[in-house]
C-alpha cells in the first residue's frame, strides 16, 4: 500500500522528487536512469482521511441512527430513507447509502458503481460459433445448439458496457441457426447417399 506521499520509480523503487502539482515534468530516475514522465496532483500532499466517528445522542427527542439507537442521525439513506449516523453513512458517487442498501445494490446489480466485472456471454456464443467453423457440419449439433441455449438463457444478463450485447446475441443466434441448418442438410445428404448406395 502506497500510503506515504513519497513518489518512487516504478522500476527500481528509488525515491523521486515530486514536481509542482498539476505540472507535467520529465525526469530521469537516479537509480536506474530510466526516463519518466510525471504529473502530481494536490491529493498527494493530503494526509489520508480518517473515518468519521458517530456522535452520541445528547438530548431526548433527537433523531437516532436506525442501526445504532444511541447515535445521532446525520443523514437519511437515499435508497431506503432510514436515518444513519456518521458511522453508517456510506457516501458513494454523491449518494448517501446505508450498509444494507449497499449490499443489496451490489448483489442485485442495481449499483453500477460497485460492480467490477461482468461475463461476456455474447463472446462465449461467438466463440462457440466461430472456432469450430471449419468443422461446423460435424460439430454444429453440439456447438451451435449450445450457443443458442446460452444466447436464450442469458438474454436478460447484464449487458456489456462497451459492446452491443443484444445485437451480437441476435446475430449469434442467426448464425447458429444457419450452422445448424447446414449441419442437418449435410447429415441428411450423407445418410441418404449412403442409403441409396446400400440399396
Amino acid at each position, binding site marked *: *500500500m*502506497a*500510503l506515504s*506521499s513519497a*513518489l518512487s*520509480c*516504478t*522500476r527500481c523503487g528509488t525515491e523521486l522528487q*515530486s514536481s509542482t*502539482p*498539476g505540472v*507535467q515534468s520529465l525526469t530521469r530516475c537516479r537509480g536506474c536512469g*530510466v*526516463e*519518466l*514522465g*510525471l*504529473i*502530481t*496532483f*494536490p*491529493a*498527494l500532499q*493530503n*494526509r*489520508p*482521511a*480518517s*473515518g468519521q*466517528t*458517530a*456522535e*452520541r445522542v*445528547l438530548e431526548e427527542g433527537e433523531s437516532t441512527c436506525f442501526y445504532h439507537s444511541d447515535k445521532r442521525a446525520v443523514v437519511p439513506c437515499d435508497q431506503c430513507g432510514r436515518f444513519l449516523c456518521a*458511522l453508517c453513512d456510506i457516501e458513494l*458517487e*454523491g449518494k448517501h447509502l446505508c450498509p444494507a442498501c449497499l449490499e443489496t445494490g451490489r448483489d442485485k446489480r442495481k449499483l453500477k*458503481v460497485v*460492480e*467490477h*466485472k*461482468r*461475463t*461476456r*456471454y455474447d*463472446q*462465449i456464443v461467438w*466463440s462457440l460459433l466461430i472456432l469450430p467453423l471449419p468443422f461446423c457440419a460435424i460439430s454444429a449439433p453440439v456447438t451451435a445448439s449450445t450457443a443458442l441455449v446460452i444466447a436464450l438463457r442469458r438474454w436478460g444478463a447484464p*449487458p*456489456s*458496457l*462497451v*459492446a*452491443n450485447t443484444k445485437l451480437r446475441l441476435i446475430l449469434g443466434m442467426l448464425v447458429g441457426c444457419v450452422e445448424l441448418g447446414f449441419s442437418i442438410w449435410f447429415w441428411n445428404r450423407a445418410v441418404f447417399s449412403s442409403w441409396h448406395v446400400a440399396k
Partner: protein
Amino acid sequence: MLRNDPEYRRLKVGGHGALGSASYWLGKRHLLVVVVAGYIEKYQRFQYRDVQALFMRKTRVHYIWGFGFAAVAIGCSLGAFQTLKGQAFANLDTESRVGCLVLLGLALVFIGGIIINALRGPTCVCYLRTALQTAPLPQVSRWKQAERLIAALSPIVLAAQASTQATPAEKPLEPQSPAEGGAGNPAPGGLA
C-alpha cells in the same frame, strides 16, 4: 452502453493487445477503465479526488519491434534478390517471378511496420497512483497515448481536487469528553 451514456466521454487511448482490450471513459466523478480479457469484462474506477499522480516510464519495446521488422524486411529483400540469380526480372520464369514478388511484398509490409512503429513513437508503461495503490493502466503503451491521457485527465482531476480542498480536509483530533466518546473512543470503564 457507455457510448450512449451522456455521463461518460470516451478517451482516444487504449486499444487492443495480446491479452485483451481496454478503453478509457471520463465520468462525472471518476475515470472508468474497461478491460475485456477473454469472456470477462472488468471495470476499474478511479475517483478524481483520489488520484495522486500519473507516471509514464519509457521502455525499449519499440526498439525491439523496429529491429524485428527491419530484420524480417532485410531477410525478405535478400531472398528476393536471391531469386533474381543475377538475371533481369523480365528474364525469370513464372515461379521465380512469383517468389520474387511475394518476398518483395512481404519486405514492403515489414517496412510499413517500421514506419508505423516509428510514427507511433516510443513505448512506455503508464501508472496511476492513489493513496492505496499504484495501478498500471492497461493498453496505454505509447508515450503519445499516455500524454493524451494526461492532457485529458489532469484538468478534470485538478478541478475535482480544487473543489474538495475548498472544504477543510481534516481537522486535528481534539480531546473528547467522555460524554462525547465516539466509536473509536470508548468511554472510561468500558462503557460504550
